[in-house]
């Protein structure tokens, strides 16, 4: 039986090998015929003609981190949904559809509660609203 399972996954391995071969082969072929005369200016990062200042590996906006966090939660939960969805039709045919439907509804309502929570907290807003912060802005140099 184990060889049969290997047979089924054989094309996956072959395709990955082919992808490496195509990528490596075209790059190797290019290395035989393409010119190679580097100079200092050519090897700096492109910033529309300006000289690059500093590195690009700096601290990045925290919003991307929040999106990644929300993604992980949803991705794991959708991965858990797959097996339930796959057996739903069979269970429905033998009369157990109601049980499974209830479990799907419970699960999705947890997901929905999660997205409502994020929405309410404002984590889904890319541009944060400034209405709250404007009232407490310090008034620098302003005499009242």
């Amino acid at each position: 039986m184990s060889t049969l399972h290997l047979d089924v996954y054989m094309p996956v391995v072959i395709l990955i090998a082919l992808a490496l071969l195509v990528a490596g082969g075209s790059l190797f072929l290019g290395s035989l015929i393409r010119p190679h005369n580097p100079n200092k200016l050519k090897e700096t990062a492109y910033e529309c003609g300006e000289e690059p200042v500093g590195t690009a590996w700096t601290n990045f906006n925290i919003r991307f981190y929040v999106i990644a966090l929300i993604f992980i939660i949803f991705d794991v939960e959708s991965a858990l949904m797959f097996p339930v969805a796959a057996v739903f039709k069979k269970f429905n045919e033998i009369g157990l559809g109601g049980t499974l439907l209830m479990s799907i509804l419970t699960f999705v309502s947890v997901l929905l509660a999660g997205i409502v929570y994020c929405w309410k907290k404002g984590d889904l807003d890319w541009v944060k609203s400034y209405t709250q912060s404007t009232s407490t802005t310090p008034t620098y140099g302003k005499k009242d």
Partner: protein
Amino acid sequence: MNNSTVVSYFSQSNEFIHVHAWLSKALGFDATSLMAFVIFAVIALIIVGAMATIGGLGTYAERKISADLQARMGPNRVGPFGLLQFLADGVKMIMKEDIITTNADKFTFNLAPVLCMVGVFATLAVVPYSSGFILADLNVGIFYLVGMASLVGVGVFLGGYASNSKWSMLGGMRGASQIISYEIPATISIIAIVLLAGGLSMKTLVGAQGGLPHEWFLFHNPFAFMAFFVYFIAGLAETNRAPFDLPEAESELVSGYHTEYSGMKFGLFALAEYIEIFVVCGVAVALFLGGYKVPFDLGSGAMLVEKLGLDSMLSQNIGQLLELGAFVSKTLVLYYVVIWVRWTLPRLRVDQLMTLCWKYLTPIALFNLIGCAVWMYAFNGKSIFTLIFSAAASGHGGH
């Protein structure tokens, strides 16, 4: 042999049995795995060759269709109607100098385009071209496809990060956040269809549909109809196509995550993108538009044997060709729509992009999922047209 791959299709023929017996005798061991390997390798080569051509012709089609939409001529110098333009582009890319900036992370810089290629090529294993012509009908087919396709996101982000250029970094960050965000509505839409079909393998998903449009999952129920559009929009975003091409937004980020890439490494990114569009369209066809199914059971060839008295193997092959034609033509129609959308709609802003994904598509996709589950339970898995037809049949002449 299990009955699920292209090898099992070939193993029905007499030639296979002859060669198998002869090889086993000559080598002194059971040659099944060896022959499977050879057939897989040859078919995989054919598919990769066909896909590279489709990717190349995709760039040609893109330029030609955009020219058409903007009342221009498009490429028309190389070959008839400019058809060989993509070969000329390929040769040019191979001959270009390969530049790696001094500050870049060299290993990751070289790895990123290869990762994109691997992710896209690995998904080709489960694309169902016809009922016999599918490389591997894995029992986790669609799950595997979703997982492998997300490797492209890793490639895009690594490409942007490793370049150590501000434009690339911004493009890579946007690409990563966009690809992972839109994976959620796409996956949930897929789950809704898995629910209707009752299985994860591509053959189960396509097999639960029929050849005629009213048997497709697109028209199974209103929720599946909406799920198609959610999946298609999310698919556009996952392949970084306009109106979601923020990672490479050429008017603000120069060229986004592949600003620093030159020559063939840039070519690999482009090739991976165009093949990925084909895969996304192919999955949309397989899940919603009936896949390779042709009407009146022509695919199995049973009708040809019965009516015309043809040889069973020959008629089976004809059926396979019909199925392949049905799948590829539907996919190419969607491919055209993708290009059409790109040259029609303006690009979204980042905040609009995130709003569309998290505030519209994800709740709608969840709603569709619940809707499909309730529909399956309430109507015992019958499609809306089955219900209408049975109601019409029972209530005939009643009014």
